[in-house]
């Protein structure tokens, strides 16, 4: 499989199905693991990094995780390809911008990805569409068990799985749920939600995790603690919070409809109109427009566009994807033109 094979489709997690998928876009779990008797990457030399990369790559192959798993060495591909993989959520920004021997393995459905030599020697990730953290945990736990039989993980009975950054030590697990919360943003209730969430030891981040800006009313809620709670406990905490946030968002949507139906419909239709006619759209503007239209579809205001198409457009109109689509590097004005024409074409269908 080549990267260009991915451009026509998107990962299964964007298909817009699964529990509460009107608000919960996806559920993701990642595990951080290191191999015993090797230094963590910041202290590893070139030779050790290479040895780690080769060993882990072989063990991943040997573990028979999925039949169609393909492996890419990130040092061998172009920066645009790496950006493309970041936008796909298959690798992290740090992994893309890193140096030396490093790679990623992922399957055709893009549900599973394994990053080799990121901040830790190995980072396993599972993403599913909708609110399905438990299922994601089941899958990732099985993959981890298979790899654990082949790799001697750095582990201590006191501190659990040992990681390069102490914020990940213990379970090494970050469980997160991506939410679309436009109405809570419009009614200025979003801050309240965040304060409540933070009290439970959870954090709120933007679309691409740590340090990224919130755009398109998309938020990621994930656990902060990784030590002192079991994986199941952490998942249960998140699982108990999400339904409260989704029902709060639904209430906010309802009150918007009952109090200012015309204004809401106008906003949604204007956004839809812009997407259909605009000739230049920036990446920031498109997130906002897509967010409004997505809510319009959920509320039954717009009926002629599929949720899957909208979810996909959030990703397919990002800079790396547009450049991949065109097969060349583009400056921001060129991207804005191509973004607008691409969206027009997708919405004509």
């Amino acid at each position, binding site marked *: 499989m080549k990267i260009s094979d991915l451009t026509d489709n998107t990962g299964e997690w964007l298909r817009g199905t699964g529990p509460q998928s009107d608000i919960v876009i996806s559920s993701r779990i990642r595990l951080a693991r*290191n191999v*015993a008797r*090797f*230094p*963590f990457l*910041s*202290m590893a030399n070139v030779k050790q990094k290479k040895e780690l990369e080769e060993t882990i790559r072989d063990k991943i192959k040997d573990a028979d995780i999925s039949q169609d798993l393909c492996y890419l060495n990130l040092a061998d591909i172009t920066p645009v390809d790496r950006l493309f993989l970041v936008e796909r959520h298959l690798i992290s920004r740090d992994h893309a911008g890193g140096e030396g021997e490093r790679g990623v393995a992922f399957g055709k459905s893009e549900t599973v990805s394994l990053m080799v030599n990121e*901040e830790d020697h190995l980072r396993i990730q599972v993403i599913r569409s909708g609110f399905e953290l438990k299922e994601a945990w089941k899958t990732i*736990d099985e993959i*981890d*068990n298979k790899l*654990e*039989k082949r790799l*001697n*993980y*750095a*582990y*201590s*009975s*006191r*501190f*659990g*799985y*040992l*990681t*390069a*950054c*102490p*914020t990940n*030590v*213990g*379970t090494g*697990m970050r469980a997160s749920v991506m939410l679309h919360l436009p109405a809570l943003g419009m009614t200025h209730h979003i801050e309240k939600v965040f304060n409540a969430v933070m009290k439970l*030891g959870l954090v709120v981040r933007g679309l691409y995790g740590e340090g990224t800006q919130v755009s398109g009313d998309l938020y990621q809620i994930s656990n*902060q*603690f*990784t*030590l*002192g*709670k*079991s*994986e199941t*406990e952490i998942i249960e905490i998140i699982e108990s919070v999400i339904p409260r946030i989704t029902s709060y968002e639904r209430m906010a949507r309802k009150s918007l409809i009952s109090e200012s139906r015309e204004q809401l419909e106008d906003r949604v239709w204007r956004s839809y109109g812009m997407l259909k006619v605009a000739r230049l759209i920036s990446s920031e503007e498109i997130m906002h427009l897509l967010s409004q239209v997505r809510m319009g579809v959920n509320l039954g205001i717009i009926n002629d566009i599929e949720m899957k198409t909208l979810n996909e457009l959030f990703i397919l109109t990002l800079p790396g994807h547009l450049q991949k689509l065109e097969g060349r590097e583009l400056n921001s004005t060129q991207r804005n033109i191509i973004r607008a024409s691409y969206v027009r074409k997708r919405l004509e269908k």
Partner: protein
Amino acid sequence: MKCESCNKKHATVHLTEIVGTVKKERHLCEECAQSINTHLTKIPSPTEILTSLINQVAPEINEMSKIVCPVCGLSYLEFRSHGRLGCAMDYTIFRKGLIPLLEKMHSSTQHIGKVPSRAGKELIKKNELMQLRNELNKAVEKEDYERAAELRDKIYEFSGENDED
């Protein structure tokens, strides 16, 4: 004000010297001040300023500052400035400094989650017991005594003895 010694650079060091009853003021640039009167004008180095600051904010750092991991070569100070550890052994070598940090980050310093099967059956059992006890505490807090009794029986069964400790 220009330096009264070299007359070129800006005077940044202002000295007041009192010899007997005579008070003498001197205005010098940093370079001249150091070359003329090193014992009087010893300016603390950035490292010294940092160390004194660290001492006030996080006293454990000074205590740990000389510790270097014999396996990976990372010093505790390097760890504190970059936030990344160098190898698994650092968790043992820097333990004293790490424990309060972990407590602050996670409100805990003991792992109770998954155990790799390689770590041995005993450890897996120990961790499962810890998880059950955790659940028991929660059930008691919630006054769910039915669940608490269930968990208690499980703990007895699991540990093969009355769980008194």
